């Protein structure tokens, strides 16, 4: 059983929902990332989504763009990100790690090399924002061959036919983008989320995560009533940004956010 599968079935058995924080690897400095991943886990995170910095993050709002820029100031590469995951794996062999990023750094490395190195490092899944299933077959084959899951996005604009195509290709979980917009966008509308999740569950048994627009404990709790997993990104990264000059304070600041979301979700 993959780490992702194990984690989701554990949660199901205890009646809990997954809390999935996103941070960008190397933000604001490379040395801190593994510590932050562990802080997130101690505060109650179930899966870590680790952003791979890219120069042209066209689906991200200003907050996560800033994270990429800070990491790229230190020239953090995809290989560096995988090294961070290996170090994390030496300390934590259970928490699943999903890499989230854009296709070009993977293209230039080569799909087979990437899949082999990611598996070796202990990565569990990948989510490539600019790779819809129509273009993803080749990479999917490479990562599946190494036991990794390819996670796909579903959007408010996805038609029922597309939802089916996506779910058929997806592994690990599917990720519903709750708003039309970039990361860090405005508030989500729970009613639309609920009806879209119904469409998704009609065609798949995979766990369904919801992300984009989850800003605080209250929204996290509200979404956790509907979804299997709650993904939170900009709310964390904006704190990294605020503390970029005092990196020693970031771990506890992120921990606080996650702990409050954890509590609210568990009480929901």
């Amino acid at each position, binding site marked *: 059983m993959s780490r992702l599968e194990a984690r989701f079935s554990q949660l199901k058995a205890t009646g809990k929902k997954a809390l999935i924080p996103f941070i960008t690897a190397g933000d604001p400095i490379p040395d801190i990332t593994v510590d932050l991943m562990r802080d997130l886990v101690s505060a109650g995170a179930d899966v870590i989504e680790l952003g791979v910095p890219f120069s*042209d993050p066209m689906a991200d709002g200003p907050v996560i763009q800033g994270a990429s820029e800070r990491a790229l100031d230190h020239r953090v590469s995809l290989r560096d990100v995988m090294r961070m995951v290996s170090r994390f794996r030496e300390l934590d062999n259970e928490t699943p790690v999903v890499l989230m990023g854009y296709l070009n750094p993977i*293209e230039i490395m080569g799909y087979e090399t990437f899949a082999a190195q990611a598996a070796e490092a202990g990565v569990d899944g990948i989510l490539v924002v*600019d790779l819809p299933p129509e273009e993803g077959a080749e990479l999917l084959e490479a990562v599946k061959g190494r036991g990794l899951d390819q996670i796909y996005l579903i959007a408010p604009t996805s038609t029922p036919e597309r939802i089916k195509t996506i779910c058929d290709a997806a592994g690990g979980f599917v990720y519903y983008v709750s708003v039309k917009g970039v990361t860090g966008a405005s508030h989500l509308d729970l009613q639309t989320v609920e009806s879209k999740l119904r469409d998704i569950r009609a065609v798949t048994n995979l766990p369904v995560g919801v992300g984009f627009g989850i800003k605080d404990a209250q929204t996290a709790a509200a979404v956790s009533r509907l979804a299997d997993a709650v993904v939170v990104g900009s709310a964390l990264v904006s704190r990294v940004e605020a503390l970029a000059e005092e990196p020693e304070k970031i771990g506890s600041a992120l921990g606080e956010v996650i702990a409050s979301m954890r509590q609210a979700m568990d009480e929901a």
Partner: protein
Amino acid sequence: MSTTAEKIIGTLPDARGYFGPYGGLFVPETLMEPLQELREAYERYMQDEDFLHELDEDLANYVGRPSPIYHARRWSEQLGGAQIYLKREDLNHTGAHKVNNTIGQALLAGRMGKTRIIAETGAGQHGVATATVAARLGLECVVYMGAVDIARQETNVYRMRLLGAEVRAVSSGSKTLKDALNEAMRDWVTNVDNTFYIIGTVAGPHPYPAMVRDFQTVIGREAREQMQRQTGRLPDALVACVGGGSNAIGLFYPFLDDQDVKIYGVEAAGDGLDTDLHAAPLCAGKPGVLHGNRTYLMEDTDGQIIETHSISAGLDYPGVGPEHAWLKDSGRANYVAVTDDEALAAFHDLTRIEGIIPALESSHALAYAKKLAPEMKRDQTILINLSGRGDKDMHTVAAREGIEI
């Protein structure tokens, strides 16, 4: 040269938007369905007589087409080789080829019921051409432009504002065209219900590279006929500058099956291809994925897009249309590069010898023709796409010479 080569016209892209290994549809999920709708609308209206009639009328009466072909006799004489002909896209309304495409896409936006138009711009020519058609059709218009480009193309920024467009400065990344494109994509993802994104070149996800090409091929269709009428035959060589590649493909496409016509696309070599300061992905880059398609890119070994440099804002882009990537690999077209200095010299030549002030982008094509002509015979012909006029570049050229205006 062989004339039995397979036909190219009408065969590409394939149904998935591919030109060989290049092109495709590499976008976030939110845009997949809107792009499908765009594809359907574009396929439908390119067969629709009313639509095509309206487009032709606008191209004739609003843009001023057909644009003439001009024999640059004095310049040809001085270069001492092939006869040089210029396709005068600089005489179009708004001063460049860009308007051929914005008219087409804006009409399509109207047919699709979209009320808001967005665009990215580098030199500002595409932004102006978009703001112009938006004004005429009464559509809301937002243009994204890198902060660096805003500083070097002030006049065009003001023109856009006069036309009623909102110009939004983009301060992320390298603050140039590629970042403006990212920001326009972000806007589109957010406002996809009422917004039509008019991309200004043959880049972006399918169907943009094919659609923009189809709107720009009016250049080559006219030129092919005009050259036959004026010179009695097809040109021996075509030369066009390549930023994203829309004026180039517009000229080249109708000639692709004329195997005896040599084709040259000219990229910006900036300070030189042996430096880090250039914008020549076909000459010095490698394939990757950016802005929705696979093509040649300027990127580092980690797959990060690197900053480009060219004296001309319109060529300052790290990617290139996927069809050019394919034409390069297939050998049908040749891609070369000229430096800032070479382009500037050609800018002055055309201005002083023919009384035509060219855009700095187009000056790259002129600079290559200047090298090519002396190697050819006097009875041979070179057709250059003079993609735009140079009024917008007065500040840049003056500043290079230490003059403040």
